[in-house]
C-alpha cells in the first residue's frame, strides 16, 4: 500500500502537533527516515535514500558499532587469504559526504504509535519511515549447553569482527592432530554456504599448519547449499580430513559442554580442541521490540520490503521473511535499493519502479578454487520468487575456478563501496 505524499505529510504534521516543539519544525520541512543497523542492508538503504532523497529527506542511521566488520570474507581471513583489517569499514563518508546523521547507540525500542525509536543511551528519534536491518540474533538454548556467555570458549564467529579473530587464534593454538568441531545451524540462517566455506578455509589452514588434525561437523540438515561442489572440493584438496555427521546419525541431537570442551552427538561424548557453535537464528532483537515479527522473522511485502504488520516500517536483510532470497549481504544490499526507491518515491515526487532483486554468493574451497551460486528474483503477492538461477559446475577447469575467485575479490570491493563510499 502506498500513501499519497500530501496526505502522508499532512498526517505527520498532525501527529507531530501533539509532540514536542522542535519535532514539529523538522517534520513539517523534511521527511524523516530512520535506519537501524548499519550493515549490508542498513548502510546501503541510508546511502541510497540520502543520495536520491536530496534535501527533501533527513536520514538518521542508528548503529551500535563504530566500525562494521563484514562477515563476508571473514572465512577467507580464517584461511589466510584476507586480512581482518580489510573487513572493517567506517561510517565517515556516510556522515560527511551524504549528510547522514550517524548515531552510534543501541536502538532499544520502537513506539509505533508515536513513531519514535528509543535509544539505550537515552532519548528517542522520531521517524516518518523506519528501516530495520539489524541482522540476526541467536535463539537461546538451540544448542543445549551453549549460550552467549560461553562464546569466548566456543565462538560462533557468525557476527563480524572479534569473534572471527578469536576463532582464528584458537585454530592457531590447536594441538598437533587435534580436532576442530563445528555445530552447523538449522535452516533458515544467514549465508547458506557460509559454514561450509568456513570448513574449507579451516581445512586449508590445517593442511598447511597441522596436517594430521581432523574436522568434525555435526549438522542437523539433510543437505546444504552447493553441497556437491564442496564435497568434490574437500575430496580433492583435503582428503580424509573432514567428517560430517548428518541428522541420520545424530547431527541433529547435540549438546556441548564449554567447561569440559566436549561435544556430544547422540549421547557419544567427544573431547574437541576447538568448537565453533553456530546456533539457530532469528531476527535481530529490535524487530521483536517493534512487535512486527511472526515466529522468528519479520514478514514483509516483496514490493517494497514494508512490514506486513506496519507499513511505515521496512525490514531488510537477514531479519526479513521475504520469500526465496537467501540471507546474504548481496541480498540485503539488493533489497535495500528496492526499499530506498520505494521510500524516496513515497516521501517525494520521485518515480517508483518495479521491484527487482538479485543475488550471487561466492565461496572459496581452496587456493584459487572459487564457486558461485546466484539468481535473479521478482516480487509477487506471496513474496519474493526466483526467476532465473545459476550455479558453478563440477569439473570446471582450474582457470574458470580461479576467475570465479578473482571475481569475488572484485565483488567485495564493489559492494563495500556501494555501502560506504
Amino acid at each position: 500500500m502506498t500513501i499519497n505524499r500530501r496526505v502522508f505529510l499532512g498526517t505527520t504534521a498532525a501527529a507531530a502537533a501533539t509532540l514536542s516543539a522542535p519535532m514539529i519544525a523538522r517534520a513539517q520541512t523534511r521527511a524523516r527516515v530512520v535506519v537501524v543497523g548499519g550493515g549490508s542492508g542498513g548502510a546501503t538503504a541510508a546511502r541510497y535514500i540520502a543520495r536520491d532523497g536530496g534535501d527533501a529527506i533527513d536520514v538518521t542511521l542508528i548503529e551500535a558499532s563504530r566500525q562494521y566488520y563484514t562477515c563476508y570474507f571473514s572465512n577467507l581471513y580464517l584461511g589466510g587469504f584476507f586480512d581482518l583489517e580489510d573487513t572493517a569499514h567506517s561510517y565517515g563518508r556516510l556522515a560527511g559526504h551524504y549528510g547522514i546523521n550517524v548515531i552510534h547507540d543501541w536502538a532499544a525500542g520502537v513506539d509505533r504509535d508515536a513513531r519514535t525509536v528509543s535509544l539505550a543511551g537515552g532519548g528517542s528519534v522520531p521517524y516518518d519511515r523506519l528501516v530495520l536491518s539489524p541482522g540476526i540474533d541467536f535463539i537461546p538454548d538451540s544448542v543445549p549447553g551453549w549460550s552467549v556467555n560461553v562464546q569466548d570458549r566456543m565462538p560462533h564467529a557468525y557476527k563480524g569482527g572479534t569473534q572471527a579473530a578469536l576463532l582464528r587464534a584458537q585454530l592457531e593454538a590447536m594441538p598437533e592432530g587435534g580436532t576442530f568441531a563445528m555445530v552447523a545451524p538449522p535452516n533458515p540462517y544467514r549465508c547458506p554456504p557460509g559454514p561450509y566455506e568456513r570448513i574449507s578455509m579451516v581445512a586449508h589452514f590445517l593442511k598447511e599448519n597441522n596436517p594430521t588434525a581432523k574436522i568434525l561437523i555435526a549438522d542437523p540438515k539433510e543437505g546444504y547449499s552447493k553441497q556437491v561442489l564442496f564435497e568434490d572440493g574437500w575430496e580433492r584438496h583435503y582428503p580424509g580430513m573432514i567428517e560430517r555427521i548428518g541428522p541420520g546419525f545424530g547431527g541433529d541431537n547435540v549438546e556441548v559442554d564449554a567447561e569440559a570442551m566436549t561435544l556430544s552427538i547422540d549421547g557419544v561424548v567427544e573431547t574437541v580442541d576447538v568448537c565453533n557453535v553456530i546456533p539457530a537464528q532469528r531476527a535481530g532483537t529490535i524487530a521483536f521490540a517493534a512487535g512486527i515479527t511472526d515466529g522468528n522473522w519479520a514478514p514483509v511485502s516483496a514490493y517494497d520490503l514494508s512490514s506486513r504488520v506496519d507499513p511505515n516500517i521496512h525490514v531488510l536483510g537477514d531479519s526479513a521473511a521475504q520469500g526465496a532470497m537467501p540471507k546474504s549481504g548481496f541480498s540485503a544490499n539488493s533489497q535495500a535499493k528496492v526499499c530506498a526507491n520505494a521510500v524516496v518515491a513515497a516521501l517525494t515526487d520521485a518515480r517508483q519502479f518495479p521491484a527487482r532483486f538479485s543475488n550471487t554468493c561466492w565461496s572459496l574451497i581452496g587456493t584459487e578454487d572459487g564457486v558461485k551460486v546466484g539468481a535473479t528474483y521478482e516480487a509477487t503477492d506471496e513474496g519474493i520468487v526466483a526467476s532465473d538461477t545459476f550455479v558453478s559446475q563440477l569439473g570446471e577447469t582450474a582457470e574458470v575456478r580461479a576467475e570465479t575467485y578473482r571475481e569475488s575479490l572484485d565483488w567485495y570491493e564493489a559492494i563495500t563501496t556501494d555501502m560506504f563510499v
Partner: protein
Amino acid sequence: MRDARAAIGALALAALAAAPSPSLAEGDAAQGERLFRPCAACHMIGEGAVHRVGPQLNGLVGRAIGAVAGYEFSDDLVEAGVDGLVWDADALDRFLAGPRDYFPGTRMVFRGIRSEEDRQHLIAYMRDAGGVAGEVVAEADTEAVDPEVAAILGIAGDVPYGEYLANECTACHRAEGGGDIPTIRGLAPSVFIAGLVAYRNGSREHQVMNTVSRRLGDEEIAALAAYFQSSE
C-alpha cells in the same frame, strides 16, 4: 602524424610481404579457427564482419593499432596507433598473451592465451580469414552494427529508469578499476549495448552476466546505456 603512421604501416606490410616472419609461418590457420571461437563472442572476421563488443578484425595484420574506422577504442590503443605502432606479428603475440599486460587500459576483457603455439595459430587464422592490411580478402562493413544492437541504439533511453536499474549493477561493477569485473562506465553506448546483447543471446558466455541480461528487455538495455552515458 597520419602520414607517419601510413608510412610505418607500409613498411610493416612490406616486411610481411617480403619475408613473412618465421613465427607467422609456423601457425596453422585450421587450428587457429578453432581457437578463435571464444574471440567470436566479441569479434567478427571475414565476409560481412561488423563491429560488435570488439572491432571487426578484417585486414588486421599490419594495420595501425586501435585505428579501424567506426569503432571507439580505449585511449591506450588509440595512442599506440597514433604513435605509429601496428599489429605486426610480435605486437599481436604480445597482446594475445596478456591484453592487459601489454595495454593496461584496454577494454578487451580477456585473460590471454598461455601457449605461444596457440597464439601463432590464431594469428595465422586471422591473416587468412581477414587478410592483411590493405589487401581485401573479405569486405567489412564498418558503418553497420549488429541489427539487434542497432534496434536498441534507436530507442531513446529513460535515464531515471536506467539509474534505478543500474543499482543492480553497482553491487559488482565499480565506477573505476576492477579486473575480473570490469568497470562499465565510459563504454561507448554501442559497445555497452553489444556486450549486453551478446550475453543475453548467449553468444558471449558468463554465468552471472547471462543471468543478469536475460531479464533485460530492449527498453531496459537502452535505459541503462543512456544512464551510464549520462553519469560520466
